[in-house]
């Protein structure tokens, strides 16, 4: 039995729930960010508590920042620029969104952004339409203003073979939703682009000894490596000896198991355990899981 929680206005294009499911942020074609709150945890009806004009062109994607860094969202707008907004209202009842930071990029558009936390440091992975991937780090955990570019690379297993400027339509990033602080920092990234080598989903791990990001696994069968990837999602590990990651391509949704023990070269074992097909997935129509 489904239950309607709220209705959205005409023009809403995207939505995202915060960590506790108490707030939902939506973006619309006119560049407005709207926040719906449920009031108290017991009620399940949501009302719009604030709106902020965050861009001139429409908002394409909204992503919440991990709660330990504040009530904040990242917005990707139609022009491909990324901005961070935070709720800094002093009054418990009011909601006030302030702009913290914008990331302008001259040529490339931002396709996806996701946040990960590693030992109290907030990291942000941004995928661009020219095939570049940038990792930023927050300098001061108390404010969201100062970010440092930590790494820049392309989604290729062989880092030497850098490709020329690619043209990517969409990208998908998913961090390993780890809870303890001690585990390795990893995320999985896939592209939907015209450069086949960039497409397949690769698992990236931060190598602390050499202070750089290395690919430790590729989630595609050899014959499928050129397939465009529409969406990826990393499942939380609740005590399994392997990790479960879902990858969506035009062939369907594939479920992968990622082993925990690296081999001699530092690569992790990958195994595709299921393929759910049967969806009428056309280019651009199938966008995620």
């Amino acid at each position: 039995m489904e239950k309607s929680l709220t209705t959205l206005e005409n023009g809403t294009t995207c939505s995202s729930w915060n960590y506790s499911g108490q707030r939902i942020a939506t973006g619309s074609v006119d560049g407005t960010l709207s926040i719906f709150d449920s009031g108290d945890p017991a009620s399940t009806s949501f009302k719009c508590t604030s709106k902020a004009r965050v861009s001139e062109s429409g908002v394409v994607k909204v992503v919440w920042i991990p709660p330990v860094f504040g009530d904040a969202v990242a917005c990707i707008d139609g022009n491909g620029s990324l901005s961070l907004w935070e709720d800094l209202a002093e009054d418990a009842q009011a909601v006030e969104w302030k702009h913290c930071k914008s990331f302008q990029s001259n040529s490339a558009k931002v396709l996806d952004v996701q946040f990960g936390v590693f030992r109290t440091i907030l990291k942000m992975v941004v995928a661009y339409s020219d095939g570049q991937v940038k990792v930023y780090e927050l300098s001061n955990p108390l404010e969201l203003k100062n970010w440092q570019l930590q790494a820049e690379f392309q989604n290729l297993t062989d880092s030497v073979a850098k490709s020329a400027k690619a043209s990517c339509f969409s990208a998908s990033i998913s961090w390993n939703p780890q809870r303890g602080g001690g585990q390795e920092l990893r995320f999985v990234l896939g592209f939907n682009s015209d450069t086949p080598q960039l497409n397949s989903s690769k698992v990236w791990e931060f190598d602390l000894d050499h202070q750089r990001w290395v690919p430790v696994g590729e989630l595609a069968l050899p014959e499928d490596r050129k397939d465009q990837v529409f969406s990826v999602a990393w499942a939380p590990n609740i005590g399994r000896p392997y990790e479960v990651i879902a990858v969506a391509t035009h062939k369907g949704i594939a479920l992968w198991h990622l082993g925990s023990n690296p081999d001699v070269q530092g690569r992790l074992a990958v195994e595709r355990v299921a393929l759910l097909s049967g969806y009428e997935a056309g280019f651009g129509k199938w966008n995620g899981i």
Partner: protein
Amino acid sequence: MPGLAPGDSAGGVPDSVNGTLVPYSSDSHVSAIYPLRHGLNPPISRVSVSWGRGNSLRVSVFRQPDSDPKSDGEVGGRVVEVTLGKSRDGEISDAQWRKIAYGSVSPFALLQSRKNSTASLSRMQLSPSPYHLEWWEYVMEYSKDISSLLGDPKTALAPLIEDPNEVFPKKVEEPSSLKAAWELMEMFYVDKLSQAWLPERLVDWLADYDSLISIDLPTVHSKLVEFQNQIVTLQVIEDDPRYWDLISSALAVGWLEIVVKLLRLHGSYRLDQLGRRETENGLVEAVAVLISKMPRMRPAIDAGKIGECFKAKPDFVKAWERWRAQITKLDSSAFWVQCDHRQTREGLKNMLQIMLGNVDVLCSSTCHWMELYISHFLYIRPFTAGLESMYSLAQKCIRLKHTSNPHKLMRLMIGILGENNEVVLAECSRGFGTWMVAHAIELLTAGSNEADILVHEEREDLGGISLEELHRLVYAQLLSSHLLTWQIAPIYLTSCMRQGMGLLEILLLKQPVQENQMLLKNLEICRLYELDGISSHLMEISGMYHWKHGRKGCAVFWLQQAHDEVRLSRIASQLFDSVGKSISGESFKQWEGLIELLGSEGQLAGGLNFLHKYRDFKKCLQHAESRKDADAARQAVESLMSLMRNASTPQRFWLPILYDAVKLLSWDEGPLINVSQTNLLLNKLQELSVARLRPDFVEPELPTQALNHVRYSLGTNLGRAILGEL
């Protein structure tokens, strides 16, 4: 376990993918697992999916943005929430289900702790104490505790005057199929004492639950209820064929009190009829007496019920044969010829045939195979023992009374009789919901070794967990989906060795921390289960929430509780920024308060010490200035000197401190700082001037002539001090 919800087009990324058991058809045609109604008009452009707590899925459905200004009335999208998975029996209300869920927590927890202590005793190879009960007795206690929760008591008012027409006794509780199923499980698997009287137990069970065993077909119970309503209208009850039909049916299933009551409604008992219908009445009464003396193979009989009980087989056999002989004698007596009323004669003869165990008559008197089965136990084979023979008898009865759409209770019964553990588990889950299977597993494993092995085996395809753990996790996920029940989920999760703690951590991390009460409750749960990492994380989130929304004191408190050194040191550095600047009023109080809260322990000890001293100095200075108090001024001088002497005072703050202290240097009433102190300060100033020449020196934000001003003031003070000491 929840599967992946197919959408026509989707966007957004879910928070969790529980990909253990995924329903997946290999045909190209994918059948919808759940059709979602959102009430929006097409075209639907995007769907965004996110997991809420437990099994609840939140789906945002977006329509194509309408550029047409005329269609203002259309909504752009809708957010719906769906709870996946079959949670429970459709018959029970929400409130009743919650009562059962809350009530079953303590029996479950008690049983688990007993299990653990028994296991640890056996590991230590200690012999159990004489007070130690057998395992099945513990499970029996557990079963009784839960069974008491399952009934739905109706407040039945006992009638003051017993209505002679009231054949059917009013029930104290409304029967529920959940309770029926639970009692079946208890009867067959746990209750070792009644294993010998299993057939009689089933007779009692049917008496309680006959109303539930079939949805569409009539049962004896339904026939009785129907007739009950019409008794009043009937003039001559013994003329109605339904009367005799009903008596036979009730006799066949062993509801002897009802039979006798119905018989006594016979017209021949009426005072005005007694003269004419003596023989008839005699026959009716004879049959009634025979029925009330029916021997039963059971230890005891409830009050108000009729029949004679025998515990030992030889006694029973003797009584049985005697009883049968009496029936046969009655059957062949001469009085039947003298009985005028045809229906009575035929009806009573039919009843005698039932009592003699005539299969055809039994078959025609009963409606459902279960009733026929019971009648076999009563009249044909009272010594049936062992599940195999019970199962083959059941199959024979099913063949005789075939039904196409068996009720879930019946399917469960067949699974139990057939000793087919997988079927039993599957029927519990399918027919009665996750609560049933999570709790009834304890009953099943107590009764059957094979079930114990089946349920505790670790399976690779489930990620290394056993079936028992799987069902508990599924139940816990269900509990987590509802706001009012998520707090009892931890008890089930912590009994799951492999994946329970992981799910518990996820559950706790999704709790909001804005309200203090909720936060404290969650922290208590973390403390109970020793989840220190989670409680630190929750406290950090709370601390940052308060910090960002202006409640800095609260924030520092929570961050200290969480031992978050990184953020606390950042806060301390922010406080350093205020050194040397003129802050007053509210912001000074806040600054001062924060320093106080931060305390002087921890990694920042040196820096915080300095801040404390500096704060004291500023306070004294403010006092001195505002009240022109010489004592306060002297105190300020003391703190100034201790600051400047202290090695932990960072060099970059020397000039700001001295600049602040200029007011002390030019005190009207006389020099406050003596010669040696002034010399020390001048030396420090000299050091500072030299240090300024170094490339990495950071200039404090002070007016450009600050250094000279301070030097001038110090010089003046030196002069006055020397003069004063002469």
